[in-house]
């Protein structure tokens, strides 16, 4: 069957089954920036934003979120116009294999939207559902702090 979903600021008609998770629906409809890791809600690779809050898309049934705004990592920035969170991950070395990066970036983006100046502990809590097998997390947390500084500087510049 086909249903409308609000994704990255526009309405998209997606093909799905009533028992599909949001992860399955998104990936089956070419939103492959959403990664499938554990499929059990433990790794955070499939993170998307639902009304600006990070959720594991593998733990959400698609038919329950038709009216909600869904944001994937491509919704916060593009290859040619990346968001400051995304450039900060590159600059701080927070990306290695890149598999966890879409989820990490979205969890960080969600945090900074709400709390532009988080403490290191607050960053740890916001990213507690996102696992990385490469970096050891230090550079990821550095990246979030760097993004916070850059966003603050950008706001100051525009004032």
């Amino acid at each position, binding site marked *: 069957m086909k249903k409308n979903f609000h994704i990255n600021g526009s309405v998209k008609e997606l093909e799905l089954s009533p028992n599909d998770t949001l992860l399955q629906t998104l990936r089956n409809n070419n939103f492959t920036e959403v990664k499938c890791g554990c499929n059990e*809600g433990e790794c955070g690779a499939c993170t998307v934003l639902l009304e600006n809050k990070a959720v594991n898309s593998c*733990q959400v049934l698609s038919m*329950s979120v038709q009216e909600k705004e869904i944001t994937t990592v491509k919704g916060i920035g593009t290859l040619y116009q990346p968001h400051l969170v995304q450039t900060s991950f590159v600059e701080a070395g927070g990306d290695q294999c890149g598999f966890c990066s879409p989820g990490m970036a979205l969890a960080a983006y969600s945090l900074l939207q709400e709390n532009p100046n988080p403490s290191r502990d607050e960053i740890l809590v916001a990213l507690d559902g996102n696992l990385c097998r490469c970096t050891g997390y230090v550079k990821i947390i550095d990246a979030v702090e760097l993004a916070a500084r850059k966003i603050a500087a950008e706001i100051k510049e525009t004032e």
Partner: protein
Amino acid sequence: MLHQNLEWYYPHTIEDAVKLISQQGVILHGGGTRILKTSSKSIKGLVHVGSLPLNFIHHTDGKTSIGSGSTYDDILRYAHKTNRLSLLAKALSEAASTPLRNRITIGGSLKDFPIWSSLYTPLLVLNAHLEIAGKKDEIISVRDYLEKGIIKSKHLITRVIVDDAPHVAGNVKRFSLIRFEYPVFTVAAALHGKKNVISEASVYITGVKGRFKHCKRAEKFLEGKSLTDEVIAEAGKYFSAKFVSDYRYSAEYKEHTANVFFTDLLIELKGGLQ
């Protein structure tokens, strides 16, 4: 895996939702996390509670009412903003992870009571109540909900009611090797009193044989006493809980650890009753 021909329902009234779940194989859907864990083929239909007016938290007449559609994150935000529900907030902040807390609803967690849940323990010690809609609409204590087997009936929890507790020092501790792991057990205590003297104690543990235990001997021992080092050391002798061995830990190990956690919990409460 869930059935491919699953039927979805989006009721706008509590009455309609209750009627829908009276059908065979039709169950409620809150955040969906628990349903996906079980993914039973016997589920024929899901009644999505997101379309019902159950996402609220408000405070009136010394009571906080939490709509059953509120997520763990909603409750944590409310607790942070108002300085209320601190014991519940402590338990919920340690449960699951941020993206799951953004999705798990309190109603779903209560209805399913997974063995690892840390939600019931603080609600039991705070003597919280549930408003339920079903064959009979009623407000019952969380304890009766479990003990009288109401949890097994077809119903919709509409709200959780937690009384203000101005002279209560409370604490909750969960045992898991890493933060992310499901807890083996969760122990909680609420001590009522003034000037460091306990007038009434409430102690519960979940994750035990029979799911939860009301630790009446420990409560009786604590009542009328101050939390001195000697009293805390002695209290452990009155606290006991029976466990089932599993692939991670033997029952004996859990019993010993639960006792240590209970003592630690009391140590942290020392001086808390002003």
